[in-house]
């Protein structure tokens, strides 16, 4: 059972601060129930040291390069996220193909249902990922380490192309059934990959948050937006 926050579902549906009417509320409940039966939640996380951080040679931008598990990432926002970290957890989560099938099925005749399933599944994968992230936080705490908020390829200037590396390093296809399309979309579509920094120093927010995302200004779904 994945506890999903219905307010998140309404938010994804565009309700912002409004409350949906009774019919929609009921449909959301139904969809969450159907999803609950259709999902096959899976996850994987593995710890990797941050091998090195060094300045990019000669480039004008001078963005440092992070080496993690053989990846060489130059991203200011990920750097900021991982400040003070010596290692990371790489994580992957998914709800399986069940939601995709339900959405495809609903799209044949009931787009209203498809749209609600889509929003509900989006909220559910966030909830599932939060739960897995919670386990990571505990695993880190056992070693006396603190987690940073999770950070995914595509956030800020962390290039989406690293999906491919994460998929390979974590063997996502084999371990949790997540594969990438040619254009780097994850299938099942309700899947998340992320980097979680580990540090000896405590920091404020340990779970994800829109506040961390540089795209939140022009994102229609951002929290705390009117």
């Amino acid at each position, binding site marked *: 059972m994945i506890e999903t926050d219905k307010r998140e579902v309404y938010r994804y549906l565009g309700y912002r601060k409004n409350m949906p009417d009774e019919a*929609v509320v009921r449909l959301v409940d139904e969809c969450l129930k159907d999803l609950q039966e259709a999902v096959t939640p899976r996850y994987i996380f593995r710890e990797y040291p941050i091998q090195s951080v060094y300045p990019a040679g000669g480039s004008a931008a001078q963005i440092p390069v992070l080496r993690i598990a053989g990846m060489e990432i130059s991203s200011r926002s990920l750097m900021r996220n991982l400040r003070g970290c010596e290692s990371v957890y790489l994580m992957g989560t998914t709800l399986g193909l069940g939601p995709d099938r339900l959405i495809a*099925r609903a799209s044949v005749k009931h787009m209203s249902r498809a749209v609600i399933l889509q929003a509900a599944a989006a909220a559910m994968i966030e909830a599932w990922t939060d739960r897995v992230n919670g386990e990571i936080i505990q695993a880190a705490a056992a070693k006396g380490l603190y987690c940073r908020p999770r950070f995914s390829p595509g956030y800020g200037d962390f290039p989406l192309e690293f999906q491919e590396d994460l998929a390979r390093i974590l063997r996502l296809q084999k371990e949790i059934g997540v594969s990438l399309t040619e254009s780097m979309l994850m299938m099942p579509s309700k899947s998340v990959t992320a980097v979680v920094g580990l540090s000896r120093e405590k920091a404020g927010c340990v779970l994800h948050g829109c506040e961390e995302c540089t795209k939140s200004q022009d994102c229609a779904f951002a929290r705390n937006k009117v």
Partner: protein
Amino acid sequence: MAGVNRRPLLERLGKEWLFFDGGTGTILQEKGLQGGELPERWNLTRPEDIIDLHCGYLRAGCDIFNTNTFGANALKFPDEGELRAIVEAAVSLAQEARRRTGRGDAYIALDIGPTGRLLEPLGDLPFERAVDLFGQVVRIGAAAGADLVLIETMSDSYESKAAVLAAKENCDLPVLITNVYDGSGKLLTGGTVASTVAMLEGLRVDGLGVNCGMGPEQMIPIVQQLVETASVPVLVNPNAGLPRSENGRTVYDVDPETFAVWMKKIAAMGVQAVGGCCGTTPDHIRRTVEAVRNLPFIPVSRKHRTVVSSYSQAVEIGKKPLIIGERINPTGKKKFKEALRDNNIEYILEEGLRQEDSGAHILDVNVGLPEIDEPRMMETVVTRLQSILALPLQIDTSDPAAMERGMRLYNGKPMVNSVNGKRESLESVLPLVAKYGGVVVGLTLDEGGIPETADGRIEIAKKIYRAADRFGVPREDVVIDALAMTISSDTKGALVTLETLRRVRDELGGHTILGVSNISFGLPERSVINAHFLTMAMQMGLSCAIMNPGNEDMILAYRAFLALSDMDPQCMGYIDTCANIVRRPASANISGGAGTAAGDAAAAPGTLAAVPEGTAGGRANAGAPGLPGAAGGKNQDKSGAMSLAESIRRGMGQKAAEAASALLAEGLPALELINRELIPALDVVGKGFEKGTIFLPQLLMSAEAAKAAFEVIKETMRDEKREARGRIILATVKGDIHDIGKNIVKVMLENYGYDILDLGKDVAPETIVETAQREKIRLVGLSALMTTTVVSMEETIRQLREKKPDTRVVVGGAVMTQEYADSIGADCYAPDAMATVHYAEEVFG
């Protein structure tokens, strides 16, 4: 190299213990393989290490060992020369290891792993492309001298099918396959042991089983199911326990000794070959060989079950009677024919979903119409149906090309309708069943027509069984159709059919099938005859009834029969069915029904209320707060029912349909109804959406309610052609497989009277341009979800400008902005569905 003392593998497999090798990745990592490195490249750069790896396993006593080609395919090695060199080297390194160890008796397995991509339609890798990718490697490996093909670590049944077909079509070597199951006993894409085994045995693999994913201990329940289900040798290659992460490396904890103890247990369960996967080492294999070698060997037993399967479920024929839904068939259905001609796949899918909800176990799929490309339509319908529903399908066609297309693209083991006693039919259909697998329906007719006696039909049944045997189709994969013919022309007809059923069961030990409703052609109250005949047939042993699962009388007869035959625990199936049935008023029983064509009483009142109409909409009794007030027109009709406008605004489909028929019955002309009631109601909702007082779900619920009303109105307009306001292409661009936004726009545009050519998702620019040219399309709507796919959108626009400059392009999607749309040269950016509607109005005036 001359395989001096090497006997053909198939002389040994399943007759004595055989052992596989163990893990590759773990050992290569110890030898220094880096995280990002492709291990197959070592065949060229570090050949000695690979030989060494093989030698370790050969000395440990394995009989079958894998080439280092798990990920060798053109997706990972696009350079054809490099791929060839890697695969050829892999085989020659294996041969060298065999020479060095003096193990000329061991078999080199060309190792094939998954592509890493998900197949269409849920993913973006076309099925035939997957077959090509695997086929290329098989050709190189077989030519280089591999002794067998081992397909392994497959977590998707569809990709497994592509790989097996590729192996079979590109070499004559034995083909073995092992899949990855998870803790719940399923493939990652949902298949069960039973469904997977059915499909793979249908494809005639020489051995099958399980590898990777878990350790031997966790694998035991799956092994149990495998040995209970499979009729070919069972192979088990576990990991050395569950993986654990240590300093960024994956480690496995089960030591060789413990591993061997578990493998001994597994071997004793009745499997025929064992080995290891991730984390296992030559030591694990050596211990396993020692522990298992002297156990008594149990050969696999043939199970003789008649099973069809989908991607996720196996359905066994013969245990209790099954219902095969007959509604996906154009015969006698005007609307269905129209849908086929207009390429309206959604209409066909709806028929499928409705029958699944009504309790069908298998769906018959017949899309034959003289003026369409049947093989192509069969392919489309089969692939779309199997992506949204879990029922096995019955490929129903008289066109061998369409039959092969359907069977090939089918994700499972299909039912095939049909073969008959004619030589031509036997020779064209049975080889397909032998190649792709399937349970084939054998019609008891031949060159001499349909025998009038049971004797005659039994003779043909025997002939079909014999021919099946000759073509390598096992007896259990044939189901005999005893042929039901209307009693209105020959009143003995039913008795002959029933006697044939009985004799197939009692004398031939076979299973049977009937198109039940044929029995009542030309008679009134057909469903009464059909229901009684169904009961009589089931009593005579009928295994499969081809019928309309939405027909109340027949479904009740079916349920009653199960309840009376002790096949319905606590009668729950019967009780549930009764609870779901909306009994028609007595008067309708007399006036309706008679004269409708064969089982074509569409979902009219009195059939099962299978799909909850309009989902929540249909049940929303309370008023929807915050909706704008009534917008003119009649609000209440005499009976107190809800007005059309009101039911659309509140998104209540059933009510909207009722209101529309009431207004039509009052004599309101259809067009007036649309223009004065429907469209204004939609406009009110649309405006509310734009103002932010109505939200997307309500907008769509209203659209669906309006659609339900449209359907009713269309019925009355059958012959007067309603002019579409314009024809629009919608497509989600190449590379993008998320089409929800496009589908929303489609619903809205259709509501406003536009004719939509929906090209689907992941659509190549060329397809869009060609369609626009051919159909003279003035407006194209494109959607893209991500920045990575906006590139394809830009390319599509570029090609359209070049080849069809007068076509306008409207774009939308999550990442789209006005600025972005301008930069790629779109004519209009539509932030939401209503904006697209407005733009269409502007274009078409």
